[in-house]
Structure formats: C-alpha cells, structure tokens
C-alpha cells in the first residue's frame, strides 16, 4: 500500500493546449480521493497521467515514494477501472480477471486463490464462465472491479466508472465501491463529474477547474467553506444562491442593519438554499437579513420543496428550501430570510473567499 504524490504536474498537448496546469496533490495511504470537476477540467488527464497512459510534460508523480514518471503502466503497481469497463470481450470473466496476473507470471494456484476470493467478495462467482457480452451493466462493472482487486495493487484508479449505469444502480454501486475500498484499505483515486457521487465517496475531495485545483479538502470542509465562487456553485444541488452586491442592493434588503452595512460593493454573498427560510407571521430575527422575491416556480423533491424566485432589480435567482410541500403561483411575492452566520462572502472579481461567515 502506498500514497500518491503529485508535484507541480503539467500536461501540454502537442497542439499547445495546456490540459493540466501545475497540480500538486498528496494522496495519503489508504485514502479515497475523488477528483471532481466539469468536463474538460483535466481530471481524466490527470488520472491517466498517474496510470502512465499519458506522458507527463513536467513535474513528478510518485506512487509509494517511488517516482514513476518514466515507468510503463504495468510497472506502476496500479489497477484501473474504466468508464466503459474495457473488459476483453472474447475472454470469459475468469480469463479477464486472470489476464494481468498471468502476464506477471504469478503462480497459478495463487491466481486461482485471488480470483476466487475476488469473485466471492463481489458475488460474481456464478458468472466466472460467461463472457462480458452475456452480462448486464452492473455485472460488468463488478467484473471490472474484480480485475482491479485481484491485482492487489498499491492503488486503484477509477475513471468515471459509474457513468454508464442507470441512476438506481449507480447509487447502489457507489455504496459498494465505498465499502469495498474501506474493507481493502487500498489507496484510491477516483474521477467523476458528478458532485453528489464525489461527496458521498470521498475521504478527500479535489475540485478541479480549467486544469488547476480550485480546492482540496474533506467533503464537509468544501461544502461548508468553499474557497471560490466556482466551488461554491459546483458543489451542492441546487447550487448556492449568489447575490452580487451593487450600490443599491443593501437598501433593497430587510433585516439586521449591522449585517446589511457589512455588505460591501464588489463582493458577492452566497447562501445555500437550506440556510434560507420563508418569512411568515413570526417576522425576521435580529441577526437575519431578508429579501423580497417574486416566485418563478416550485420544485417538489419529496420530503421538501424548493421555491424559486427572483430578487430586486438585478433579477438574482434565489432558491429557498422549505419542508414538505408549499404551493405558490408564479408571480406571488414572498419574503425569504437567512441568518448572518450562514453567509459566504467572495470577492466578485477574483472569485476568492473573503472571510468566514460571521
């Protein structure tokens, strides 16, 4: 077992496109690290550089303290699970699992032991004599996992392994991957564009955008203290409400004047929908600010609803989470409030976080 260490890793393609712009990252032994970001942010490229499938333009990658820049993928002691599984279609499941071991000249009784063990863990023993074409998507996914497990590598690399599955199976496999990784304790690097998947899987979350790391930290850290506007809107669904402060904004808000006075022009405040409430007869608390919205729609997601509205002359879109189901016709005026402690502040220009919520 081993950690993975990236130092100022860059990738520049032949055409001059810089896909990865100097990424440094320390993946601790046994941790499950998820790289998340929109498509084209360089997360897959980064993973493939760790795997040895893409060359490294500059910087170093070390696995288990050993620099692997010049090593073939097979020599890096990693195993990879691909988005389309990449199972060998003409081989049985058993042969698929064995292939990498045979090529490494591992004794056959050891191969049999490992394959049977992996098959038992993944509950694919009855499928061992079938070919990939005879398996369902979820079963193929398990076989792909099995191929990684039997190798007993220093690290697992996952390249969007769940995106070819339907929504229900995806949730189930997500949980299985997580518990499997806990059980084996193998260092894992996992790429996805799905922030929910990232949040639920990761020990450590790394948010990437345009080839660099926006923020790295535990999922809760990132959720509660997003370092940039990008992270604030990318993590969380529905996205965090943003309100750029303009000269007249403060006067359009209601509530605590101390809080309103602290809103300086050129900053943007962010409030998560669940930190907002609809103001009823009870009125606004002392440490709250409130905004008058015009309802544009209501979305029922089960135990709760999201009420969407626009605010003021800026027409800023605001979502408010309310428990249960509340109905409003479009155009209804409502008032929503949020406590001062739940405000996030960002510099509108640089996008950087300014301070912690008071």
């Amino acid at each position, binding site marked *: 077992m081993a950690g993975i260490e990236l130092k100022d890793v860059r990738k520049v393609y032949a055409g001059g496109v810089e896909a990865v712009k100097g990424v440094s990252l320390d993946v601790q032994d046994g941790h499950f690290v998820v790289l998340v970001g929109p498509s084209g942010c360089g997360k897959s490229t980064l993973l493939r550089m760790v795997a040895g499938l893409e060359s490294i333009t500059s910087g170093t990658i070390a696995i288990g303290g050993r620099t692997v820049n010049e090593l073939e*993928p*097979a020599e890096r002691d990693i195993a990879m699970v691909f988005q389309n599984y990449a199972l060998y279609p*003409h081989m049985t499941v058993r042969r698929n699992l064995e292939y990498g071991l045979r090529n490494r000249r591992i004794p056959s009784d050891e191969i049999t032991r490992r394959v049977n063990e992996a098959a038992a863990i993944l509950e694919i023993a009855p499928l061992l004599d079938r070919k990939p074409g005879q398996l369902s998507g979820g079963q193929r996914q398990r076989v792909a996992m099995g*191929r990684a497990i039997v190798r007993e590598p220093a690290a697992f690399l996952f390249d969007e392994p769940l995106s070819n599955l339907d929504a229900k199976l995806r949730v189930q496999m997500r949980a299985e991957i997580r518990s499997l990784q806990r059980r084996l304790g193998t260092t894992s690097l996992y790429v996805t564009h799905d922030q929910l998947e990232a949040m639920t899987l990761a020990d450590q979350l790394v948010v990437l955008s345009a080839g660099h790391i926006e923020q790295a930290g535990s999922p809760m850290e990132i959720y509660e203290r997003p370092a940039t506007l990008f992270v604030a809107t990318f993590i969380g669904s529905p996205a965090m409400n943003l309100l750029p402060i303009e000269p007249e904004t403060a006067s359009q808000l209601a509530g605590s004047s101390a809080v309103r006075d602290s809103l300086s022009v050129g900053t943007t405040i962010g409030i998560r929908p669940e930190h907002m409430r609809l103001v009823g007869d009870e009125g606004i608390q002392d440490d709250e600010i409130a905004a008058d919205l015009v309802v544009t729609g209501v979305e029922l997601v089960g135990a709760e609803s999201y009420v969407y509205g626009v605010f003021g002359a800026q027409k800023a879109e605001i979502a408010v989470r309310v428990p249960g189901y509340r109905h409003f016709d479009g155009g209804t005026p409502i008032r929503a409030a949020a406590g001062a402690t739940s405000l996030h502040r960002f510099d509108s220009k640089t996008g950087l976080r300014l301070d912690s919520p008071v």
Partner: protein
Amino acid sequence: MIERSPLGRPLAHLLLIVGILIVAFPIYYTFTASTQTIQTILRPPLPLTPGSEFANNYGEALFGGIGRIGGVGVGTLLFNTTVMALGVACGKIAISILSAFAIVFFRFPLRMVFFWLIFITLMLPVEVRILPTYKVMVDLGLIDTYAGLILPLIASATATLLFRQFFMTIPGELVEAARIDAAGPMRFFRDILLPLSKTNIAALFVILFIYGWTQYLWPLLVTNNNQMNTIVIALKKMVSFADADTPWHLVMVTAILAIVPPVLVVVLMQRWFVRGLVETEK
C-alpha cells in the same frame, strides 16, 4: 402487412428458379459432359443426364497423367493451385494484419507516408503492370516457383485497409487495460487483437482464396514448367478446337475439378464470405 398481388410470390419463385438455372446450368452441363465418353461429347446434342463414365474419366484424370500438358496428373495441378490459393490468402492476411496493427496501434515518424505507400497499391491490379513485374520475377529467379506465383499477388492494400478499419473500431481503453495488465504490443496482438479479428480473417480468407485460385494471367506468365501449372492454366492449355486429339472427357473432368474446391469454400463459408465481400468494398 403490405398487400401482395396473388401472383407476386409464385412469380418471384419462378424468377429465382430461372436465375438459378442460368447460373447453374453451365456447370451442370460440363458435369454431365465429364461423365460421358469422348465420342458422346463430340456428337451433339449432349444428353442432359450424367453418363456412365464418371469413375473412368475421373480416375484417369486424377491418377493417370494427361499427355497434352506434359503428362502431369490433375492431382498435381490441384496441389499447385491449392498451394497458390492458400499462399495468397495466408500471405496477404499475415502481412496485412501486421501492417494494419502498426498503423493503427503505434505512432511513429513517417506513419502516414507508409500508409499512403500501401494505400496507392489499392488502385493498380497486376494486369496493368504485367510486363515489368514479369521482368522483376526473371531477375529474381522466381519463374516456376511457388514464391513467384504467390508474392506479386500479395502486394495489395485491400486487406490492410479492411483490418485498419476494423482495428479503429476497437476501443482505446482495451489497449490501455492491456497495458495495465502488463501485456506488451505483441502479447496484445496475440491474446486480444487476433481473437477479436477471427471473423474478419475468415471473411478475407474466403475472398482471397478465391482470388488466388482463379488467377489466370499471372500463373500463365510465371510457369513454363508443366509441373508448376495451376489447374486453370492447364485446363486452358488442354483445350484446342483445331486439334483432333483434345481429350475432351478429361477437359470436362478438369473443368469440374477446377470449379469444385472454390465453390465448396464459398458455400461452406458463406456467412463470412458475404460479410467479407460487402465489407471489403466499403
């Protein structure tokens, strides 16, 4: 369900039966002739049912020598032709699959130059460069050799293009998975690419076997020695209308024996053949 005129389907069957008669009759006619005595053959009209000389004629052609073509038996001719057809088919498949492998699965300087170098040969059949090619064969001392029969015919791009097209449909992740599974290029070729190419190889094999078996101009030029003749060439050499000694019964037997092996290959491997045919022309 679309309406059909009541006569439509029987008419279609009738048409197809006429078609098959047109297609099969010349072969049947020759088969009938191959079971007659030479006297019957020379006195038209030929009976429409097989005669009594099947065993005699086929025995004589296969096991006795045929005087007109230097006393060589049809067995030798069949052997030569089989060697040539197999040589062309296997040779072309082997060199093509290797070069397509190189072009698709590697990046190296001059890759596209090599691709075009091979691709241009798609356009020119051996028939149009026959004389200079013949000279090359003489210079290399390949006249009357199997190598001489086979080699010039395997210099063509069709098979390479077919394999290239197929290889490009193989997902790149399979290559990457193999690299992570410690399979080098040649192991990948043997363990993954070859098994996946099985049906393509079978399809090409049928087409190229027929191509090799039915060659005419080239074997005519590079074989002087009767022992090296292919069956098609020998058949042509046996036929002479000016000459009263033409052993017509043996000519008919030889014609049938020249037809049967490739027809069997096509019919037995029909599934691959039809696929291969339609795909090589894409």
